[in-house]
């Protein structure tokens, strides 16, 4: 066990934990004020529900001994054998508990990301069950496939910090949910204007801050790779914030604050799979593309007409996919991508993209249908009118 790495990863885990409330604020500011608490709650409570489930069974399904490349065994259920030293730890420089809790924070935020798709119209009870099932049936397998010794990792797919595990998975789930749950009342005719953009910017800032833990921490050691991942993360994010506002500026509007924040998140998402595999200057290029492409992804949504309320598909789905593919192109650090003549890597990335979208969409479809037809997921029109805060939580966000 290496105490430096332990110190570094524990602090990184704290940073990643902070991202989930950051996301809560990012999303919370974008909805109408009558839904602010329900939206925040759907992220915040993941810290409760997912953490406990992770300790009970999720961690073991992800990192337990590999079963056919598909899922982890039950060796670590109830954190059995997950101790203060490195025994059995997938990272032998870290206490097993440190590795487990760092991974826990990823499992917390991923289902929270999806909530942006069905914001302002989801019932809480059904949502809790949906999320619990999703952790076990979608996240844990994905995590195992990529990082836990499963087939994607074996195939050589590069995913430094979760382009597939975190962002494509939640993006695909978001698309599925947005279609299945249907539109908000008034969609198309009413303006859904963000009620508190400073709160959204604060959320984006916390995400950016915490993402250093997410990506640099994914080096699992305080080494030069961590430094590189830290720098690529920052540079891609900076570039994407810029390119998004330039895109909207040229596209006939003004450069907006929400655009800068959205671009930053798009950059963070896109660099996630690549952070440890590209150089800082390529990260800038990757980020410049991310801002424009995710902006385009949202324009597309406006065309297609499904109501992905807070653009989870456009940012996490599109951004994660773009990032995963670009990793196959631009990798030059500890891996070789297309620009080093290794076209195979891009093919592997492509396969992992297709498999991730297909698996996550299909599985989410099943879970959604099952929960919807038993407990129920979509709030009724009167509830939507009143707002989910009062309808589902008997609270209101503000009393000026």
């Amino acid at each position, binding site marked *: 066990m290496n105490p430096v790495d332990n110190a570094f990863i524990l602090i990184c885990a704290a940073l990643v934990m902070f991202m989930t409330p950051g996301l809560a604020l990012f999303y919370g500011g974008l909805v109408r004020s009558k839904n602010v608490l329900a939206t925040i709650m759907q992220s915040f409570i993941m810290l409760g529900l997912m953490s406990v489930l992770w300790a009970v069974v999720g961690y073991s399904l992800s990192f337990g001994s590999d079963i056919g490349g598909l899922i982890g065994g039950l060796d670590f259920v109830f954190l059995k054998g997950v101790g203060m030293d490195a025994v059995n730890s997938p990272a032998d420089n870290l206490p097993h508990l440190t590795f487990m809790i760092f991974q826990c924070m990823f499992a917390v935020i991923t289902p929270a990301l999806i909530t942006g798709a069905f914001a302002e119209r989801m019932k809480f009870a059904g949502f809790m069950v949906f999320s619990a099932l999703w952790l076990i049936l979608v996240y844990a397998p994905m995590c195992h496939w990529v990082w836990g010794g499963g087939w994607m990792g074996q195939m050589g797919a590069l995913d430094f910090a979760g382009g597939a595990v975190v962002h494509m998975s939640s993006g695909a789930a978001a698309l599925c949910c947005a279609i299945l749950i249907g539109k908000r009342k008034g969609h198309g005719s009413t303006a859904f204007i963000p009620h508190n953009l400073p709160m959204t910017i604060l959320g984006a800032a916390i995400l950016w801050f915490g993402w250093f833990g997410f990506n640099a921490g994914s080096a699992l050691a305080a080494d030069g790779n961590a430094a590189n991942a830290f720098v690529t993360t920052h540079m891609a994010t900076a570039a994407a914030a810029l390119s998004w506002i330039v895109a909207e500026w040229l596209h006939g509007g003004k450069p907006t604050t929400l655009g800068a924040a959205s671009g930053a998140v798009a950059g963070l998402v896109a660099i996630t799979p690549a952070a440890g595999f590209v150089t800082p200057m390529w990260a800038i290029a990757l980020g410049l593309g991310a801002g424009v492409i995710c902006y385009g992804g949202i324009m597309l949504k406006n065309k297609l007409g499904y109501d992905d309320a807070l653009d989870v598909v456009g940012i996490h789905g599109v951004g994660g996919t773009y990032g995963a593919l670009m990793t196959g192109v631009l990798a030059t650090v500890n891996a070789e991508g297309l620009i080093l003549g290794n076209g195979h890597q891009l093919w592997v990335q492509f396969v992992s993209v297709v498999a991730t979208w297909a698996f996550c969409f299909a599985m989410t479809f099943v879970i959604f249908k099952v929960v919807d037809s038993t407990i129920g997921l979509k709030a009724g029109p009167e509830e939507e009118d*009143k707002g989910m805060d009062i309808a589902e939580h008997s*609270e*209101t966000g503000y009393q000026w």
Partner: protein
Amino acid sequence: MKKIEIITRTFKLDDVKTALAGIGVKGMTVSEVKGFGRQGGHKEVYRGAEYQVDFVPKIKIDVVVEDDFAAEVVEAARKAARTGEVGDGKIFVSPVDEVVRIRTGETGEDAI
């Protein structure tokens, strides 16, 4: 001249505005208000303490128009604001003695 106060649901603002603009209303003034009525309120709970909130958010739209235009405005507003559920609100019509346009100093019907 008449002042017409339309108190109705918040999400009906755009519909009413469009309806009134459609029949030629040139200006109106809107406030956010809280209404008490048959519709009833809701319960809020903070750390286990329950509060009954009797007021629901509404909007109030004030329009001042010429006397003989008033009935048409009331009718247009009523149609646009109606959902048929309790809580649709009320329209009040009251007399106005004088109107002044601040910019030009015009008064009376010219000022509306």
